[in-house]
């Protein structure tokens, strides 16, 4: 059940204004990307809760760009909820999403998000690309096309991996990896539509439910047993945000590989000599609870030495991409990625590994801009090298 605007005040009232949401509890390092960037209390989670209550009570108005800025600079990373020890901690993001839904309902949308939503409604993707472009990444790769052909597993690439040139190598690496280990796998290609996560995070619930309905019908028709995605946002949305009705099991590629490794159905035979640190994508870790699978995969690859950053797992700092921030507030998104990159560099490793196309894009840009010595890889790329 999604939180309604009218229910916000009750939840927001539970905030003690103690500021625990601003810090990683045991490490006392920053937890909130927007608060760290803007510094005013109005950009920290507790400030947003107070603002939400004020909006419900009519003490603040949606028709103000500065109100929208407070609502939309949240990356929806969820670190506030992990740090807050109070009874409403699990609902902080629900409040943010409900406030955004109300903003959209009242026609208050940033131009960057308006473009995304228009594209979602016209093209079923966030990249303003025609549907045909969605299959371009599969050129030169042999994969079954569902639902015309049948397979046991569907690889759902998601908008970013399918359409963003920076992330397309990850879709190709995932498909090659799955084919390479003999998985009976297919893709939807041009008929794949967005999972709806961007619409839900921005607050356009109508578009989200339309896309969810389309996906549930189409994905059920494929007859696959398992849907694998390399995008944590798609994973979280399919698994936790969709209304009931999606029949296949949905797994992140790291969960799927981990399962195969556990059952000795696959093994890493090639050595990959590198030192690495792993960045937990927010939607894979905090939102979906997948912390150990990527680490187990890395630990099974011969030659890989993993050195952890200080903020990991439920305390991991965001890359800055989520919640529509990278589109509407690129300065903040870049600053956040750079901060995380600094933390990765401090481990002294050669490689930064992640498991999300949006994080990958963020870090690729940050590495380029800062001329960081770190090399970037997704979990599917390193796993592909080891098999």
């Amino acid at each position, binding site marked *: 059940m999604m939180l309604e605007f009218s229910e916000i005040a009750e939840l927001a*009232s539970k905030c003690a*204004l103690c500021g625990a949401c601003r*810090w990683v509890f045991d490490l006392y390092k920053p937890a909130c990307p927007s608060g760290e960037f803007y*510094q005013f*209390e109005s950009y920290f989670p507790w*400030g947003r809760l107070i603002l939400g209550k004020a909006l419900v009570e009519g003490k603040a108005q949606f028709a103000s760009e500065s109100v929208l800025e407070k609502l939309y600079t949240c990356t929806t990373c969820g670190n506030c909820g992990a740090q807050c*020890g109070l*009874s409403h901690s699990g609902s902080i993001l629900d409040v943010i999403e409900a406030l955004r839904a109300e903003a959209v309902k009242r026609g208050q949308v940033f131009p960057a998000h308006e473009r995304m939503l228009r594209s979602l409604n016209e093209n079923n993707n966030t990249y303003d690309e025609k549907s045909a472009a969605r299959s371009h990444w599969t050129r030169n790769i042999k994969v079954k096309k569902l639902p015309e052909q049948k397979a046991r597993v569907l690889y759902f690439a998601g908008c970013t991996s399918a359409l963003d040139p920076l992330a397309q190598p990850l879709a190709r690496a995932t498909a090659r990896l799955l084919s390479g280990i003999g998985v009976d796998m297919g893709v939807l290609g041009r008929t794949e539509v967005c999972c709806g996560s961007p619409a839900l995070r921005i607050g356009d619930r109508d578009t989200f439910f339309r896309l969810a309905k389309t996906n549930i019908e189409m994905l059920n028709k494929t007859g696959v047993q398992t849907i694998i995605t390399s995008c944590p946002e798609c994973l979280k949305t399919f698994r936790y945000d969709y209304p009931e009705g999606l029949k296949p099991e949905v797994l992140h590629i790291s969960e799927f590989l981990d399962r195969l490794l556990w059952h000795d159905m696959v093994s890493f035979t090639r050595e990959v000599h590198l030192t690495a640190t792993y960045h937990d994508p927010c939607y894979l870790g905090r939102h979906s609870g997948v912390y150990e699978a990527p680490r187990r995969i890395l630990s099974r690859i011969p030659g890989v030495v993993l050195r952890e950053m200080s903020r990991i797992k439920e305390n991991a700092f965001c890359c800055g991409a989520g919640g529509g921030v990278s589109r509407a507030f690129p300065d903040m998104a870049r600053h956040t990625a750079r901060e995380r990159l600094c933390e990765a560099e401090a481990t002294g490793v050669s490689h930064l590994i992640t498991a999300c196309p949006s994080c990958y894009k963020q870090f690729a840009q940050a590495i380029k801009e800062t001329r960081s010595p770190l090399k970037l890889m997704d979990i599917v790329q390193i796993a592909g090298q080891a098999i």
Partner: protein
Amino acid sequence: MEDRDRVNRLGSEGSGECEGPKALEDVLKRLKEIVGERYVATDPETLYIYSNCMINDAGFLPDVVVLPGGVDDVQAVVRLCNDEKVGLTPFISGSSPDVLSRPRDGGIIMDLKRMDKILEVNERNWYALVEPGVTLGQLKAYLEKNHPGFIYAYPYKPPSTSVMAEALSGGVSNLSHRHGAMSEWINAMEVILPTGEIVRTGSASITGHWLRHSPFSELAGLFIALQGSSGVCTKIAVQLWPGMALEKKKFILTCEFPEAYAIMRECALCKGFDDVAMVSSILMKGALAGSGKTNLELSPGEPAAYIIIVFSGRDSAEIMGKDGVLKRIIRRHRRQGVEMIDVADLRAINPGFASVVDLPSRMEFILNQGRGMPAYLSALGPSQNWEKATAAGMAICEKHGFTALVISRAMKGMHSAALSFMIPLKKDHEPERERLSACLAELTGVLLDLGFIPRNAGRESLRKIIERADPEWINLLGKIKGALDPNGIMSSISFGNPQGYDDA
């Protein structure tokens, strides 16, 4: 008082020298030149959010919020406020639960969180020099990583609380039994006076060392426990303590508060314990009850008090020795007929107790009981009236329809007794707020009758304190405040004003 009366909202008609939109525009322009445009906020949402804080008073609305990046910025903003007679409220590390940032309506809030560096940890002289934005949690993490032999203290406050705020407001912590209130651990400070001069206290006024001693009168008191502020502190050196290799916590559950206090007094006489404190059972039940329970009640026969005794040592022999002393105290009281349970580790009974026992804590056991931070009245007084003050305070809270959570601590041995009442309430519920005002006023009166002086007084309590105070003492404080802050720009109690506040 004439000058003070002129301090008011920026840009409002008839508000003194800084009048009209032109003046507001000019002040904003100068603020942006000082701290940079991105660190000045005037949007209504930010002002509204800053008007909410954890303390009991609320309802003020600033005109501007600024975030200075360093001492030069602070000095320039203070000078601007003094020149233009604009009210200034320092705000530290987010929402501070203590009455350091006593709000006033209008003027400038100066949020000091960007100044968050730990400037020095001196292992030879046991102190840390920190900026205003350094939090208790931050200092803990830093010491654990870089100076593992040293510790700082933790009060029953969230770890996001400022080290400086706790020190300046005389916080009571888990080391206060040994070392007194946290204001007693201030070695030296750097303060920007309301007129813009930078002064240092302690040995920092003479030498480059941040030690406590000073050849003349110790001036740190001008800036401590003022129920507001008389300057902007930009650096503070606080005393650290050596951490012991081993630490043990023991818990003694008694049915009555007098029995608990008798045991605490005896423990204090031993001089060997790090902490001798007591929390009421209602508070401990809150730790287990989860959220939304505002009217917890004890069942018949349930213990009323949980005594917490903490002791540490360099080796197990020292720990065993102290443990033996405690066991003998417990045996002696049992022989006298006191019913009690002693427990080695409450967390083993229920992990929910960890939030009370392990400091710093997220304070779920208190914060989940009402809606937000409870009303809070903390007082220091003579230990012989501990029992009476506890009973009277609880009765007053009950009379006004509140369940008080009680925390007591023997201070610096047994030089005084600390007694805190936390009252969970629905802050946004107007009838409850009205009942609370009446409750706090009555509670303050009774505590004062018994010699207990609230240290974080709200509006109601302050009025009571000023009514009781020696008029000459009040006059002296007023003169000092007037000399430090001739234009009355800093928010603080107005000692010449029987209403208690500059803006009351």
